[in-house]
């Protein structure tokens, strides 16, 4: 994304068709992405799509997917939105942290931090 070479920008444009926002419901940077079990990807998927489907066989947060693809978060989101529309990945709906952390998780986090 730096320097004079327009190549990367053109590549990004190709990945997203110039779209800046993903289709459908917005999702958080740490939303968990999971490849849908048994889904049959169409034959014309881009390499980035395959990378995501491979990576997210283990549930993976959006930010990690972006870092893994070495792509900006927004571009990653567009790719993930497309894969979701095709029914190939599931993306967790946003939930406030306060609602997801129960006593057990809280203890796990504290113990985990202390034992680092």
């Amino acid at each position, binding site marked *: 994304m730096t320097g004079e070479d327009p190549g990367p920008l053109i590549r990004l444009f190709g990945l997203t068709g110039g779209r800046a926002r993903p289709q459908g419901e917005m999702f958080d940077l740490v939303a968990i992405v999971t490849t849908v*079990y048994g889904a049959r990807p169409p034959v014309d998927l881009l390499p980035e799509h395959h990378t995501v*489907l491979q990576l997210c*066989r283990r549930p993976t947060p959006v930010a990690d997917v*972006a870092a893994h693809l070495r792509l900006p*978060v927004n571009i990653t989101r567009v790719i993930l939105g497309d894969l979701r529309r095709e029914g190939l990945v599931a993306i967790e709906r946003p939930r406030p942290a*306060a609602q997801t952390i129960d006593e057990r998780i809280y203890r*796990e986090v504290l113990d985990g*931090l202390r034992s*680092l």
Partner: protein
Amino acid sequence: MGYAASEPGTTAVAPALAIKILVAGGFGVGKTTMVGTISEIRPLHTEELLSDRGVGVDDISGVEAKITTTVALDFGRITIREGLWLYLFGTPGQDRFWFMWDELALGALGAVVLADTRRLQDCFPAVDYFEQRGIPFVVGVNCFEGARRYDPDKVRRALGLNATIPIVLCDVRERDSVKEVLTTLVTYAVEGP
């Protein structure tokens, strides 16, 4: 080509959960250092593409926003166990990226506001931001070498902080120190004052 996802039933015990924690504070206060000290991976770097909508130009409905600039986003990860992670996001320091905070803060467990006693005023905007939105935060006073050791009560008065907000003196280069800041935040965010 089919993808065999994780087998059904084996991972359904507890859904994967990534907990988001923000690290805020003025430029050069040690945000990236703090993330790097505790992260199990070298802080990951990605970029957020900003649209002209993001930088304050009126949105024209139905017209795709034009991408105009990028901002670096650094984050680190702590794996508590398989399927449970803490993510630390350093907030962009520059004021012009202020709007990005809203997205970063959405759903966050809480924030660490790093303060440098030589430039306490630099962390005012972050304190204001989290106070206004009711996001739990703790203040980590990064004790740089050569900086005067401050009495936490003085810092509290100088920042106009509510008596319940934890203030932790820390050295963001020290793992144990960063652990203490984070455990203080998690405790405060979950149990309240």
